């Protein structure tokens, strides 16, 4: 899963990512209103959220702690930090300023190591508050030309951490790896559910291009990227657009561009000339936050093993490649602890990863099926009582009834009575009994298979698994 290098007409791309992530706190960053997605509009509000006159912010300690977890997981230095006001007018920004961090962020100078062995610097990860959400009625769906706007302030004041990478990313693949790995870390440390589709993780990309060895080119910021996949597409499109402009003798204008998922292009949102002057200054309603060494150490000590470490442990325990699909998928789903439990209960690691990867996509971080049961099933499989296909069938039954007994289910299915050599003999007998059907089946006539399966079913008095028989027949067909 190594990131493919990107090079286009002699240009390389230089990309930095700004990731906003909503923290999984109980309440908002500066008030006691619930931080909850999907509630009735304007129900999770209060004087602070609405920016009423006289309202004052009070910092949420849990938010600081979750932000520290992110910083420490990214190897950042956690420092004394100061909140600042970022001033601009927008209807869903209740105070007309956002409380953010500017020249003294909480976390600085970290690094994210990617599964392909590369690493990307993290410049900073700071705390700030989210805005409300506008819905524009009529027109294009944007504020200009709309008939009216509705604002939901439930999201206003929700704690965000903005994680700013260094411009160390050089391909769409690497950007995707970064976003996916960052997401896995955010989930692992319990900081956020980090769902791009729900907006609890938002990724903006700063993209520029240059010929190798040249100084940095003019960058454009790409917004509205709603999935890891789109991130790769948007960066690739944008870099090609810039290369085309430069090779045509034009220059790049520094601007913010909007990714349009439907047409697969980026479009100008605003140019540098239109950019607000944010007039940052220290937030006088809050005091500096000074996390002491004891607090930092306690947070660091409470961090769980991170995805990279877990992938390594899973790869070692199961004999799989560390960046192989099975290991990547299972760690991303958080099911590696379950696989280790299956192994501890006597199940073979290499079978456990396959079963968990294939059958547990919906099972969540804590599958209902006891690890010991899956271990027993795997033991039956590796002990030769069940074929791989039969084991899959039994596992599907077990997932539907997690308290089931694999031995009993195999018996019900007739798998146990039907030793695999017995079934194979029946298949051979069926071929011998109906050479005409066999010939047609070998020639690619699908219908002929029915007759052959019928023979086996008859001979086994319905005990054989049709799917297994089909598989056995297909295995025998000359290729």
């Amino acid at each position: 899963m190594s990131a493919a290098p990107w090079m286009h007409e002699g240009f390389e791309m230089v990309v930095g990512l700004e990731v906003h992530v909503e923290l999984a706190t109980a309440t908002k960053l500066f008030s006691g209103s619930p931080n909850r997605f999907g509630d009735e509009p304007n129900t999770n509000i209060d004087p602070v959220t609405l920016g009423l006159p006289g309202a004052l912010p009070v910092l949420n300690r849990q938010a600081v702690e979750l932000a520290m977890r992110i910083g420490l997981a990214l190897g950042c230095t956690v420092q004394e930090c100061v909140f600042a006001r970022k001033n601009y007018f927008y209807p869903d920004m209740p105070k007309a300023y956002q409380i953010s961090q500017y020249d003294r962020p909480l976390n600085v100078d970290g690094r994210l190591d990617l599964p392909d062995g590369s690493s990307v610097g993290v410049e900073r990860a700071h705390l700030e508050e989210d805005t409300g959400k506008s819905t524009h009625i009529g027109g294009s769906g944007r504020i200009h030309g709309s008939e009216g706007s509705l604002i939901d302030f439930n999201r206003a004041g929700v704690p965000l951490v903005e994680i700013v990478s260094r411009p160390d990313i050089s391909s769409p693949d690497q950007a995707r790896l970064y976003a996916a790995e960052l997401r896995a870390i955010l989930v692992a440390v319990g900081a956020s559910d980090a769902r791009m589709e729900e907006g609890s993780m938002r990724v903006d990309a700063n993209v520029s291009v240059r010929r190798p060895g040249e100084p940095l080119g003019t960058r454009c910021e790409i917004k509205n990227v709603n999935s890891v996949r789109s991130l790769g597409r948007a960066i690739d499109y944008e870099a090609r657009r810039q290369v085309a402009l430069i090779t045509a003798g034009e220059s790049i204008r520094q601007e913010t561009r909007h990714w349009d998922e439907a047409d697969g292009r980026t479009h100008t949102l605003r140019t540098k000339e239109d950019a607000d002057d944010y007039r940052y200054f220290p937030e006088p309603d809050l005091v500096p936050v000074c996390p002491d060494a004891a607090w930092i150490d306690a947070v660091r000590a409470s961090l769980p093993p991170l995805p990279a470490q877990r992938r390594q442990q899973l790869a070692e325990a199961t004999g799989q490649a560390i960046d192989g699909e099975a290991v990547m998928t299972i760690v991303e789903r958080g099911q590696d602890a379950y696989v280790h439990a299956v192994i501890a209960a006597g199940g073979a690691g290499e079978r456990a990863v396959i079963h968990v990867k294939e059958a547990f996509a919906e099972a969540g971080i804590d599958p209902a099926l006891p690890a010991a049961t899956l271990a027993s099933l795997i033991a039956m499989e590796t002990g030769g009582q069940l074929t791989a296909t039969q084991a899959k069938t039994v596992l599907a039954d077990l997932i539907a009834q997690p308290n089931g007994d694999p031995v009993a289910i195999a018996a019900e299915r007739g798998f146990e009575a039907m030793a695999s050599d017995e079934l194979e003999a029946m298949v051979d007998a069926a071929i011998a009994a109906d050479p005409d059907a066999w010939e047609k089946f070998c020639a690619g006539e699908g219908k002929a298979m029915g007759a052959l399966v019928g023979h086996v079913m008859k001979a086994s008095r319905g005990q054989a698994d049709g799917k297994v028989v089909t598989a056995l027949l297909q295995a025998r067909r000359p290729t």
Partner: protein
Amino acid sequence: MTAGQIRPIANSVRSGAARAVDVLNGYLARIDAREAEINAFNLVLHDEARERAEVIDAEVAAGRDPGVLAGVPIALKDNMCTRGVPTTCSSKILQDWRPPYDATVVQRLAAAGAVIVGKTNLDEFAMGSSTENSAFGPTRNPLDVTRVPGGSSGGSAAAVAAGFAAGSLGSDTGGSIRQPAALCGVVGVKPTYGTVSRLGLVAFASSLDQIGPFTTDVADAALLLEAIAGHDPGDSTSIPKPFPSLEPSLTRGVEGLRIGRITDLPGGADADVQARVDAAFDALAAAGATIVDVTIPAFTYGLTAYYLIAPAEASSNLARYDGVRYGMRVAAADTNAMYSATRSAGFGPEVRRRIMLGTYALSAGYYDAYYGKALKVRRLMAHDFDAAYADVDVVLTPASPSVAFPFGSKTSDPLAMYLCDTYTIPSNLTGHPAMSVPFGTGADGLPVGVQVLAPALGEATMFAVAAELERAAGAAQ
């Protein structure tokens, strides 16, 4: 009216010797008689105050103690949030706005048994030194109605001077309690920054704003300040420890105290005012204090620094009045036009001027030259005062360069108006406490206020000196 009112009222209401309703009626009668002329209030709460006074009386009748301010009529500057009661900041932009919550000071007054009689007039959003910047007309000085009461808390100062309330609360960002106290002949206190919660105080300049009392004597000021002071977890800049009792200060005297005289104080005080300050030094020396010369080189730069920092914060604090969620909205073709139309119509000229100044001071390319440099002056000011307080316990200056001035005499020249704050601004920049105490009269028989400045959390010493000045002024009469 120089005798204290709050203590006698609270004592007699708590003991059952007087009824809160009768006390209130006395104040309401004076309001009814003179308020049309003075215009101290944006809103008089006749009915609410009567209901509240009845509740206090019922408490006493039931054998309960309503608190240290039982039945005491108090007026609130109209930039402090009162639940369900209009809170306008004397601005058209908030003309009909009713807060859904009470400011912490309002809760504390209620918990102490006070009766709120009304919301007092101010310079719009507390920006001004004469109350002439109110959108609802100026307040007149009860001692001479041709003159201003000072500002921005002019309504609160006038209400106490006119006997409309036994005490009142103001807010002080650059002198807005101390200067009107001086001009109206009452006591006005700006406590150490963080002593009184700002939660529910509509912000002008958050790092400078502080709420404090107006009263007719020093003892009342101590009592009212104690009632509203103390830690509030709802204000992150609130000092996280209990406020000490000021009671011992009132009788301590000034024996052994060192009183600072600033030798490099910026000039500009009128001779009649300076004469009273000189007399104050003499009185304190006569009472056993030592007068010590000190220098505060940064004092001169205070005004300039203040008029960058305060407008900068104000430009941000007042940005929320955008017509989107509450307050005035002037309809226009699109959102930006609506913002512009609403804010142009809703804010008066002085507020607009300061928003422009502050926006400019924070702009890219100008921050370091203006706001950044002002912050340096602020640190320098704290440094200079800290150095002076190594040698003295308090410092004495005029509270205002002049006695109350006639209406319109400074309105055409904003800089002349800003100079009213020369002596009061440094305490806001340092966060230190300061108070104005009436000390005789100057030109035209109008009162002069002497300002007592003390180091951070130095209220106890400051009140001891203020009480001594009050005794000396009384003895001289």
